[in-house]
């Protein structure tokens, strides 16, 4: 099981704060994205935006990085703190 978290406007679009995905073998971030979009097509525009960051276990990750069972993945819209 791999937990995916949605923050800020993504939470509104996804309709959930987080969702678990059953990923048996390690996949790339890009492959995980496709799995998520197949499940929640409403996220397509947001997740494909160049300004969307992805974190794996709370560190910023990139499309070719791999994610495995037990990882915590999050989609991070542009920050607006401070």
């Amino acid at each position: 099981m791999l937990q995916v978290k949605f923050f800020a406007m993504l939470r509104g679009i996804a309709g959930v704060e987080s969702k678990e995905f059953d990923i048996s073998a390690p996949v790339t971030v890009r492959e995980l994205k496709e799995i998520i979009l197949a499940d929640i097509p409403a996220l397509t525009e947001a997740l494909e935006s160049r300004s969307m960051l992805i974190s794996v276990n709370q560190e910023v990750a990139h499309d070719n990085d791999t994610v495995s069972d037990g990882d915590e993945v999050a989609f991070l819209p542009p920050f607006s703190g401070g």
Partner: protein
Amino acid sequence: MANKLISIQTEPFSVETAIADVKAVSNGIGAVVTFLGIGRDISKGEVITDLNFEHYPGMAEKKLEDIRARALLNFNIIEMAILHRIGPIAIGEDIVLIVAASAHRNDAFMACEWAITELKRVTPIWKTETTSKGAVWVSQTP
């Protein structure tokens, strides 16, 4: 110590207490520069009635710790505190506080300005602004 110097919290923070915590670290401190971010009533020409902040628990705190550590490494400062509020924030209320302390003032000014810029760049915190049109997520803060 770092626990008091880094915080993401819903309750208001005390600027006086944060400065005292930083000053307590050393008698060699001669300069304290503080940045305080406050909820403004206008943003991009729209009247704002309300703000609301959310963060990625865990990652956001880690990023603030990391900013403090890099500031201590890369600037000639003695201590730094970074506090950020989340949840509903009224106009005029404090949002974020950076306190940088050094022997001489230039170092504290440079570190403080760098830290708030870096905070906005790397910390997973998001805000909504409420206008007459409702609450909207702000996608970028300059």
